[in-house]
């Protein structure tokens, strides 16, 4: 069997390699950063325009009141689930191979949540009054509506985001201490000193650290599941054909894990290349991630088919009409594309040879995420265009450039945050990689001892 990591990497080398990624960036980094900034600028410009003129510039209309904002919001929420999966679930399951890659996955969680939050905001017709949806004691003596799934959403996302930030930070403390100890001047030193909370690696610290980390991880897992279940409730709790589906929560969670894993593959490949992390982000790990992704893809496909089947065989004629409309109406190209990307493309991952084919996996992972984005759009829009009330069917509505601009901008925003993170914080967990190396060498030693003993 291939090794997830070489057991003979010196610990100092690990420190050196990872800390090197924090050093003065290459020009390519700046280029990427600038491009991301420009993309974000486009989105920001669109929002300023929309804020001033009104939501009409998004080219939404009366039957068709939601559009890409909500679809992209779900997409980013979904994206966030990967980090939790890798860092919390796999942590509990003692899957060792997660260690070199969970840090950036966890960062991805945080940043995609921060991106998703923006979409909730830009979606609001009266952004400046968003605080009406926040439960706090106020001079109006009013409360928001606790029945509304949208309110649950806001609460769940906020909780998830804060928990994710804590989890990310707590898990990073020993590494911050390493960074502190290896950097001798400048703002970084101050920053790491502050954030490392006086970590010295004593036994007591390690013990408390483990307990805390484990607790937060345990807390985070149900939260992650509930967040996307609640997002699913936005739809499942409504009465609209195509939305009113009982299986939406697990379907959404599966979809979330799916798109998250695909995004991990993408970022895995990028980071491995950009920061030269070949030693840590090894092919066997990639293979494991790909296999995991494939498994989730099949789960998603199954749930997807269940959804179609339950609509098809039910007596809900309106829902059936929406399904037919998805497959044959103006959204058909996107709907078929989504099914292709979501269920057919991952089949490539079955082929062993392809699992470590970097260009191919890179392309596949992008396609998977395209499919998942389309999935969200195909959940939101066709129901509006072909709802219960035939008089208001609107098959011609098409998102305006403002909507596309903001979707585009959100990728810039995410990239921006991620790029900054990578240069400020170690994107590979040094202490856990060391653990991994140590465990492997220990295992090796044991084996050797055992072999010796046999002789």
């Amino acid at each position, binding site marked *: 069997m291939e090794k997830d990591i070489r057991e003979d990497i010196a610990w100092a080398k690990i420190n050196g390699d990872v800390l090197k990624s924090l050093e003065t960036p290459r020009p390519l980094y700046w280029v990427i950063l600038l491009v991301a900034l420009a993309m974000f600028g486009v989105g920001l410009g669109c929002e300023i325009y929309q804020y001033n003129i009104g939501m009409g510039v998004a080219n939404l209309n009366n039957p068709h009141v939601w559009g890409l904002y909500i679809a992209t919001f779900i997409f980013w929420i979904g994206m966030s689930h990967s980090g939790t999966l890798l860092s919390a679930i796999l942590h509990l399951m003692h899957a060792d191979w997660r260690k070199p890659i969970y840090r950036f996955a966890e960062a991805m969680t945080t940043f995609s949540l921060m991106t998703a939050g923006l979409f909730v905001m830009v979606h609001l017709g009266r952004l400046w009054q968003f605080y009406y949806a926040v439960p706090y004691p106020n001079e109006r003596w009013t409360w928001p509506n606790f029945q509304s799934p949208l309110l649950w959403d806001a609460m769940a996302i906020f909780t998830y985001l804060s928990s994710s930030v804590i989890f990310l930070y707590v898990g990073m403390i020993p590494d911050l201490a390493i960074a502190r100890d290896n950097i001798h001047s400048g703002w970084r030193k101050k920053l790491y000193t502050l954030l490392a909370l006086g970590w010295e690696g004593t036994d007591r610290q390690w013990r408390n650290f483990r307990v805390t980390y484990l607790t937060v991880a345990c807390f985070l897992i149900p939260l992650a599941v509930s967040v996307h279940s609640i997002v699913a409730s936005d739809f499942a709790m409504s009465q609209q054909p195509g939305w009113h589906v009982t299986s939406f929560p697990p379907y959404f969670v599966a979809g979330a894990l799916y798109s998250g894993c695909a995004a991990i593959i993408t970022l895995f490949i990028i980071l491995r290349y950009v920061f030269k992390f070949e030693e840590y982000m090894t092919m066997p790990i990639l293979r494991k991630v790909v296999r995991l992704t494939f498994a989730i893809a099949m789960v998603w496909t199954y749930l997807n088919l269940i959804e179609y089947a339950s609509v098809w065989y039910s007596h809900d004629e309106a829902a059936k009409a929406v399904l037919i409309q998805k497959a044959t109406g103006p959204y058909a190209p996107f709907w078929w594309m989504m099914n292709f990307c979501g269920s057919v493309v991952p089949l490539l991952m079955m082929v062993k040879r392809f699992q470590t084919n970097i260009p191919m996996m890179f392309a596949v992972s992008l396609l998977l995420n395209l499919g998942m984005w389309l999935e969200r759009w195909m959940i939101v829009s066709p129901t509006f*265009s072909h709802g219960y*009330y*035939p*008089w208001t*069917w609107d*098959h*011609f509505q098409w998102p305006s450039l403002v909507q596309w601009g903001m979707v585009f901008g959100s990728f810039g925003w995410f990239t921006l945050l991620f790029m900054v993170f990578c240069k400020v914080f170690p994107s590979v967990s040094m202490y856990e990689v060391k653990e991994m190396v140590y465990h492997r060498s220990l295992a090796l030693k044991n084996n050797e001892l055992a072999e010796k003993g046999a002789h």
Partner: protein
Amino acid sequence: MIENGINRRDFLKVMGWGGAAVALAGCGNTSVQDGKEIVTSYASLDLPEYAIPGISVYFNSTCAQCDAGCNIAGRVREGRVLKLEGNPASPINRGKTCGLGQAGVQAHYNPDRVRQPLLRTGGKTEELAWDKAFALINEKVGGAKGNEVAFLTGGLSGHAKVLFTNYMDALGSKSHYVYEAVAPSVVRAANKKAYGVEMPRLHIDKARVVVSFGADFLGAWVSPVHFSQQYAQFRKGSNGQRGVLVQIESKMTLTGANADRWLAVRPGTEGIVALGVIHALGEAGMSLPADVAALSKAYDAERVSKDTGVSAEQIKKLATLLKERTPSLVIAGSAAEGYAHGSQNAAAIALLNRVLGNIGKTIDAPATVPFPQVAVETGKRSALEALSGSMAGGAVKVLFTYAANPVYSAPAALKFKENLGKVPFKVAFAHFMDETAQEADLVLPLDSAMEEWGTVVPEYMPETAQLNIRQPLMERLHTETRGVGDIMLALLKQSRPNDYKDFDDFYAYLRNAILKNKAALGGAGTDDDTFWMETLSKGIAPMGTAMGKLAATPAASGLSLPAPAEADSAYPLRLIPYVTPNLRDGRHANQPWLQESPDPLTTIVWDTWVEMHPSTAAKLGVVEGDIVEVSSRSGTVQAQAYIFPGIHPDAISMPLGNGHTSMGRWANGVGVNTFALLDQVVDKDTGELALNETQVKVSKTGKRVIVVKDEGFAGGSQAGKKIAVRTSTDKVELTGEV
């Protein structure tokens, strides 16, 4: 209730607690403010008991949106008229209004109203003071002799009409051209011949079957709000026997869309259908008068079916229904009259009423107006031809236009605009700078109907004769506008100073005129002030109970119907101009509520369209939204196509009312002017323009637009859902319904 009109104007002054500004600020400011807004008392000087800020007062008046003369009640608050409701005491509209009437406030508050007298010389426009304007008019009419001063007006009635008549009298002119672009003038003439009255009273509510030959009495014909009231009763019926409506026309009107059976008839063959029904009635055993029997003999069901496209079975069914359910009522409308033989069509239809014995039962004589000088003078399309002719001949030196927009609505063949140019001095009384006002030398700005005094005698009075009062509902918005009565009075004071010196203004004249005839207006025995007050507060003065009588009986003699017209190979389709309930003849095109109110049948807004039957469209290869070119011998326009099942395949239809080049911000450049296509073909008997006689050809231009309409992607389909449900009389029990 109110002391006198002049004072009331003061009360109505906008002095208030600025409601509008308050309302507009909307949801913006969310916190308590202090000392930012100004608040003054409602009326600074004196305050009548009824004027309470925050509480609406209703004043009765008369709607000016069409000639039906509905009685309305204006809701007035803080000195502003906010909304118009129907006057519940009105025999015409019984508290109801149509959409057009509701939009009356938009004619009043319209930002595009003319606000100053304007003198236009050589392309230059300058503002003018009223006394200068009057002096100028005096100079010009002084330089013309008798009939060289001509008047072109819309339908006129009431005391404004009296003043017009007197002024013409003073000038020695008899050139009064009364013009209405879409009025049922042929039917009026035919009625006169058949029944002895222009417009008999119709009792739709008493009929058990109504057969309407294209009379859109629910949409735009004569007095739609009144007929809608009758229609509601007719549908409720008596003893649970619901009235049956059969509509026979080539293009479905709003009334057609509400019919139990809508029969698409080949354009122009309405009279043949009527005779066919008579024939079928005879065959069904009804005894026909000899002359009628002789006339209808040739019209057996098969032939009629062949000529008209209405199946023989339908004709027989209709005859059976008419025979079984009496009384019935047959109405001839614009679809029947719009042909060169329109009068003959209408006569044949009247004959059907005679055969069915409806005359005297559901067709009744109208009330007699005891003061003929205030009675309505209805407009004719032929007036325009006559005027155009005399203008072309240089016989008109001064032309006054009021309540008519002939430059917009004249058929191209009349070359009206060109001939108008030959008139040296043209005075337009105008609310808007419409196409006719644009051509005038002097434009006099009119008060809106919510600012002026006046009286109206409706053309169609459902009960006894009534004089409708129009009174100001609020202070003038613009100080330099004048009521038409005031203008005419000022002009008369120039010509006959002695007769009118006692009257400061039209209000004084009107009050005097009404009080003089107090006894005849139901005020015998009351003192002047009380009577005047009561009349104003009611908004209606009764003019006696005298009813006329139907002086004639429809006769078969002289009636001959031509064979159905052969298709014209160069212009194979017939254009049916559609008078929409929203825009009528186009004078309301600048009222945005009406532009945004979807056409009931197509649901199209803000545009003109070309309706065609799916089979016609298929033949032409046209789909919805294709820009098609419609050409007649007189003109060519381009408009979007709309595929519409309710039209005969031999015809296309376009709505009237849009395509203004000059009117206001909401009207200009919207749609195309269908009037521009009309051929100058007239009804042979009356000389009235036959609206449906225009032959057109339609070709694709290759351009396509999205038709802007309320109807969505599903079109008129309910997709199998239970939304607008229909049942039939045999499946429903109507007796006992609340």
